């Protein structure tokens, strides 16, 4: 049963399919904003499939083990993230403190990008790697404060407990501290997904792909798939933290959950299409400055009971 959870539903297969569809939605909406036609719905699947069949080119100076293991571990970790979220949301399973484990695994894909690109041994990858590291250090600070705010509010250390609290006393989003916390968390998610304005580690026009500059074939496909799974998991995570979780059955049920999900994905897409890329030092300043201040304000408001 555990293998089924991890590999089929709500784990790898489900998360990958929904994640790739979400990636397509993002690409299609972006294209329409640009007055372009955009790709057909199966484009993201075709991309990953094609990458999986391509040759993996190893840079001459690469540390091969780290270079090749990184995408595999990133994919495994993001799958685990999706599984834990799915278990808590759809099947009401979990354990006390699972949110802390969840938090650890959420950082693993980013850390793997750092390790993988650092072991490529080329200058552009190294720059991308150092930028990813700075970005990770930047957004984790406000994100953890917001998370602490939610945990204190729900008085529970498990994902299931947070959902239960919201079922009893209404979504956290419908309060002042909740709104501020949601804005901060949304921008942190934007950075975690590596989307504009926080795509400095990839920076197509400066580093030509940066952290992924030396990756090709199945290894790149692993990272792409891991990103797609995160693109599905992180909006669900936001819904879990702030918007009452995905409650199937009862009332509008699955339709309402879908609406919430698409709304958050649309917000992410709009942010990425209406902003230029921030320089890495500006991004870190943004998170350690404004975002941390806002997160602390949300926390204080929570203590005051707002």
């Amino acid at each position, binding site marked *: 049963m555990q293998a089924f959870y991890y590999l089929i539903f709500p784990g790898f297969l489900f998360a990958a399919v929904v994640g790739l569809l979400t990636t397509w939605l993002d690409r299609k909406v972006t294209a329409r904003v640009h007055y372009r036609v955009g790709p057909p719905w199966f484009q993201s699947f075709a991309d990953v499939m094609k990458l999986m069949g391509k040759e993996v080119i190893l840079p001459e100076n690469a540390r091969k083990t780290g270079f090749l293991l990184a995408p595999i571990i990133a994919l495994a970790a993001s799958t685990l993230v999706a599984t834990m979220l799915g278990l808590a949301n759809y099947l009401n399973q979990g354990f006390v403190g699972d949110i802390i484990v969840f938090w650890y695994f959420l950082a693993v894909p980013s850390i793997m990008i750092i390790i993988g690109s650092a072991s490529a041994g080329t200058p552009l990858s190294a720059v991308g790697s150092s930028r990813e590291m700075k970005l990770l250090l930047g957004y984790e600070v406000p994100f953890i404060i917001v998370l602490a705010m939610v945990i204190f509010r729900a008085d529970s250390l498990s994902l299931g407990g947070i959902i239960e609290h919201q079922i009893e006393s209404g979504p956290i989003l419908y309060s002042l501290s909740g709104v501020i916390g949601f804005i901060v968390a949304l921008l942190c998610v934007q950075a975690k997904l590596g989307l504009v304005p926080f795509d400095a580690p990839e920076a197509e026009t400066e580093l030509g792909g940066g952290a992924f500059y030396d990756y090709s074939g199945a290894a790149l496909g692993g990272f792409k798939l891991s990103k797609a799974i995160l693109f599905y998991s992180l909006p669900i995570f936001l819904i879990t933290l702030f918007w009452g979780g995905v409650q199937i059955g009862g009332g509008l049920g699955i339709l309402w959950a879908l609406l919430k999900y698409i709304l958050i994905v649309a917000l992410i897409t709009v942010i990425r299409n209406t902003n*230029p890329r921030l320089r890495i030092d500006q991004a870190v300043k943004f998170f350690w400055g404004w975002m941390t201040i806002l997160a602390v304000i949300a926390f204080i408001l929570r203590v005051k009971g707002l």
Partner: protein
Amino acid sequence: MKKTILPIGPFHPLLEEPEFFTFHLDGETVIDVDVRIGYNHRGHEKLATGLTWDQVPFLVERICGICSTSHPYAYVLAVEDMLGIEPPPRGKYIRSLIGEMERIHSHLLWLGLAGHFIGYNTVWMWAWRYREEILDACELLSGNRNHYAMCRVGGARRDVSQKALDFTMKALDTNEKSTKMFLGAVADDPVIHKRLKGVGILTKEDAIAYCATGPTSRPSGVRWDIRETDPYDAYGESLEAGAWKVIVTENGDVFDKAVVRVLETLESIYLCRWLIENMPDGDFQVVPGEMHEGEGCGHHEAPRGEVFHYVRSDGSNKPIRHKVRAPTFSNLPTYKASCPGEQIADVALITAAIDPCYCCTERVGVIAGGKHSSLTQDDLVKLSVEKTMEIEKRMGVKSVLNKFK
């Protein structure tokens, strides 16, 4: 501290054209930058000496795909200067109109690319979408979206129809609105301010010292626009009539370079409108007549700066010497002044901000034994004097260059 060298090029996913950058880095800060070009030498100057006078405009039009009318424009001005021909007014107006339409679409193209470089792909796509209207108008005016072939020694090559002019007027109206929208978007967006203000400052002194031209020098406060400083064709009359003005700002950073280009687009729209409204009737070309010995210079304010052409004739049907100087040739060295001390992310912007056109500027590159050597001005003067004396000796002409010996 240990210094890293980041090589980019000559063929690299980041670059649209072959060039080779060497960035000397300290962390993410660029300490020094080296640019090497010369990978795409196409031998235009040599080819031109094998073509007849009337074939050369078609050749030099191919130097650049974006500012495609600038080179033939400067060339025909050079030949007219040599022959002392005055084209009829309608021909002059048509040439200036095409020149300005080109400036509008070239600046919009740059704006889109600049948006792409700061990761703002929406600006990229929108700018190019609004550029299409101008290209449609160009197609109706000249028969082509680009490579208009409208410049001819002695006037314009073809007449323009009233229908095309009416369509152009409409395209200009819609374009004015969208350009103003872009101006608002650039001037008001706080994130764009953060990314562009105070980045890659080129001081007025540096701009003059490096001989920067066009929209690279005008943001630094250098008032130098060939259309104003040495008016030709319809530019003098339109300037006197107050149809447009030269845009000069003081800061010299990337933000000012963007603002100058957007404002210049607006000025070009006003100028195009004035040219269409005041388009004179009558002939649009004259027959050049006999070719005689002599030499001539012509320069045109291309979207990227001053384009300079020099031709010399021995009275035959072909030029014996044709010299081209594209604006990027003098704008490129400003990297040395504006890049050091900036971050990698900003250097990508700064190099894009001069609107470089490396392939247009490929004229000299010395590679001997796999080693590339850069030539100083003294070397170049010495080389050209030696070459001239060699030719004179071969042709049996009395030298005029003895004083340089």
